[in-house]
């Protein structure tokens, strides 16, 4: 076999970085730079550089035994026929076309596909288009003032060059991220009620924040209000490769967030779960707890292009081709449709069969693709909404003998991939208070357990401990922990 070269898009986040995947004679993967890609000029972040580790081939399984994909699809049809208390989840970690084919299965079953972002339910639907509309990344470079509510270095690294370019063009950057940013002109901590008066934004400004499965809806509302009152553009970064696509093409009403799905499984209202490239063990903050919950399911049917931990637990795994080899497209945060060069439709064909077996419509790649492209051409409706009511956001004061462990969500964390991130970030005050020693460890204890971690020192607010990695002590976005020197 010859070397295969695929043009594809990095699945690390929704920026849509173009790249080549080279698969050599032995099946070894390497990434190569696609310098003509307008979103990233071929540049890749740490996650993109490690993609060969990310793309792992999944194997179809039925009840723990290896099976071919037809058998797995057949078994899934049998399980789903007449099943009750079903739920479906697809966060947008695959192509638009697969998502739409997955939606057809949901139609056949008379249910909706959840994209896992609970915040949508809390936010009035007239605001949804403001969240899902594409904003060109070039616009960042043109803004005169930028308010950052994310840490671009860790969370969305390809934004860094855009922000630096904006600065070169004369922009000032104010950061409200959890740690001081080198590129920011001002690193501030402002109460949401004072955003309007303190941040100095106007209609040449831009607000950059993100929306993901664990986003606090109150924060989204606050920022939508801020955008409304100041006239600033607001850009919502998103964590999965097709996050924008699934919100544009999917139904946003009647959605369940990840936590609601987990609650549903726990209280028995969900007995059968079908997922598409969405591993709840990776996506939920606490892996052990998520595993315990998923065990309560009668049926867990996993469709995936990746070998991930949930495959082990699933009753049925329908393994599709790796993401880079798929025929299909992604929609990035700019609202651009980015095409894969791959031509394989194994995943879509499997979903088509499944849909037909359940009495639903068949899916064929070209038809879905064409229909999707037609709907892209429809202009966005200009976002219109009026001021939203927000609750006062409370940040729990850290206890005397510990701190608040905050997760800095990043591509490695979303897919629980190993990286050189096996440490937490604390500030000098905490080092002094706990008597931490150089080269020593910090012990963190929460209700969920205890862990010893290496640490590094940065300028972050007092009482905060940051992690870029999933830790067994985490229970949510912020976890109150007891900290000690080891």
């Amino acid at each position, binding site marked *: 076999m010859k070397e295969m070269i695929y043009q594809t898009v990095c699945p690390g986040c929704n920026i849509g970085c173009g790249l080549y995947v080279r698969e050599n004679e032995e099946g070894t993967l390497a990434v190569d*730079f696609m*310098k003509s890609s307008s979103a990233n*000029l071929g*540049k890749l*972040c*740490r996650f993109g*550089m490690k993609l060969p580790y990310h793309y792992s081939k999944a194997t179809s399984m039925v009840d723990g035994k290896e099976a071919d994909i037809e058998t797995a699809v057949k078994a899934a049809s049998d399980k789903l026929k007449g099943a009750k208390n079903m739920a479906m989840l697809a966060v947008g970690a695959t192509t638009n076309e697969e998502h739409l084919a997955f939606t057809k299965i949901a139609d056949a079953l008379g249910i909706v596909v959840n994209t896992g972002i609970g915040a949508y339910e809390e936010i009035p639907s007239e605001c949804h288009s403001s969240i899902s509309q594409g904003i060109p990344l070039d616009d960042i470079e043109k803004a005169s003032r930028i308010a950052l509510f994310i840490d671009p270095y860790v969370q969305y690294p390809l934004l860094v060059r855009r922000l630096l370019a904006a600065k070169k063009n004369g922009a000032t950057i104010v950061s409200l991220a959890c740690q001081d940013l080198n*590129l920011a002109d001002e690193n501030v901590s402002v109460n949401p009620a004072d955003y309007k008066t303190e941040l100095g934004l106007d209609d040449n400004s831009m607000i950059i924040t993100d929306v993901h499965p664990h986003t606090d809806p109150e924060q989204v509302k606050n920022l939508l209000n801020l955008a409304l009152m100041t006239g600033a553009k607001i850009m919502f970064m998103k964590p999965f490769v097709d996050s924008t696509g699934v919100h544009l093409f999917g139904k946003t009403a009647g959605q369940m967030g990840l936590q609601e799905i987990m609650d549903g499984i726990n209280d028995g209202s969900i007995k059968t779960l079908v997922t598409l490239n969405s591993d709840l063990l990776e996506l939920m903050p606490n892996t052990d707890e998520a595993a315990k919950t998923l065990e309560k399911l009668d049926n867990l049917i996993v469709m995936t292009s990746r070998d991930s931990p949930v495959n082990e637990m699933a009753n049925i795994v329908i393994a599709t081709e790796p993401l880079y080899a798929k025929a299909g497209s992604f929609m990035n945060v700019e609202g651009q449709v980015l095409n894969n060069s791959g031509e394989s439709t194994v995943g879509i064909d499997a979903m088509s069969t499944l849909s037909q077996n359940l009495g639903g419509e068949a899916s064929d790649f070209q038809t879905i693709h064409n229909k999707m492209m037609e709907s892209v051409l429809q202009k966005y409706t200009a976002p219109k909404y009026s001021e939203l009511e927000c609750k006062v956001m409370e940040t729990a004061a850290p206890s005397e003998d510990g701190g608040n462990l905050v997760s800095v969500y990043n591509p490695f964390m979303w897919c629980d991939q190993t990286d050189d991130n096996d440490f937490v970030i604390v500030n000098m005050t905490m080092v002094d208070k706990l008597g931490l020693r150089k080269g020593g460890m910090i012990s963190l204890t929460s209700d969920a357990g205890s862990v010893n971690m290496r*640490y590094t020192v940065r300028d972050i607010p007092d009482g905060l401990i940051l992690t870029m990695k999933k830790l067994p002590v985490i229970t949510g976005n912020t976890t109150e922990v007891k900290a000690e020197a080891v």
Partner: protein
Amino acid sequence: MVEVGDMLVGYATDENIRSRGASGGLVTAVLAAALEKGLVENVVVMKHINEFEAVPIITDDVEEVLASTGSLHSVPVNLAKYAMGRKVAMPAKPCDAQAVIEQGKRGMIDLDNTYVVGLNCGGSMHPVTTKKMLIEMYDIDPEDVVGEDIEKGKLIFKTKNGEEKAIAIDELEEAGFGRRESCRFCTLKIPVNADLACGNWGVIGDLAGSATFCQVMNEKGAKLLGNAIDAGRIEVQPASDKAIAIRAKVNSVMEDLGNTLEKEIFPDIPDEERMQYYMEQMEDCIDCGACKEVCPVCACGDDAKCTMFHSLVDNYKMSMYHMVRLLHLSDSCIGCGQCSDVCPSDIPITLLQSRFAIPSQRRRDYKPGMNLDTPPFFEVMLK
């Protein structure tokens, strides 16, 4: 009979290749002949994706060689890494050829079995910058472009409807477009370090635009060119004195420009400000490691000192990774610009690296990637 030192002008015999390939299709024909006659097992060529994008492929299919693109100024990739561990023939800009030789010194490329067809290079450009430039400076839709050339200090674009538009490179570069920064201070324009040094400089008279000037640099080059003649793929004739003089003239103009720009690009920084300067430049590094991965002279592989002794948990004022690389490449950096190209934080790494490498190499009267006479300095053999 082709001999080392020959200066020739030639073109492909196949009318199709001649009209489609750049400047008479000589390079394409030489590569195809090397593959056909079994001189090599594979050829590295650029597979055309569009006018602004091509991807290097390693092929044993003559058709793919013939279908490959001519010179694209807006696809700045270094090909050395694709030649590793194979018996190949490859086209090469001067910096590609330098990297091939540096890899050869480090035992990563078998130079005896690697045939390097050098191409004159006045500099390359970023595809996305080029598209922007076409819209803003040339008023041409990037989709309409069918060809490009650099001639007499001007960058020329040809469009579908046969029109040409030329703008002086100086003017473009002043407006923030034009060649990549690393190409501006480069002074190696004719690939005298390759096996054959080819290009359109010095192709005059009737042959202008439909033939290639070719200098045979060594035995391998003679074999490669002789092979293509024997295979009936190309025809050559000796270059006239006038042609040779014109080629040398173009080269010296380009060299002088490079030298002038070097002084502009590397202004002196006072001793006491340099540390601050380097720290500021590297502050936005996100530790992706792409600059090492893409480096065509790095032969360390995964177990490299720069990465193995660098950890994100370290709270150092300067990253160990960069310190090791600044030192490690001071004897081998060829200034190809690949690292700057792929940096997600737009750190001008090539410029930083060159500030260390250029003085270090000049002090030793050494230019990396020119020949095998001098080993890498860190591996200097002691008597």
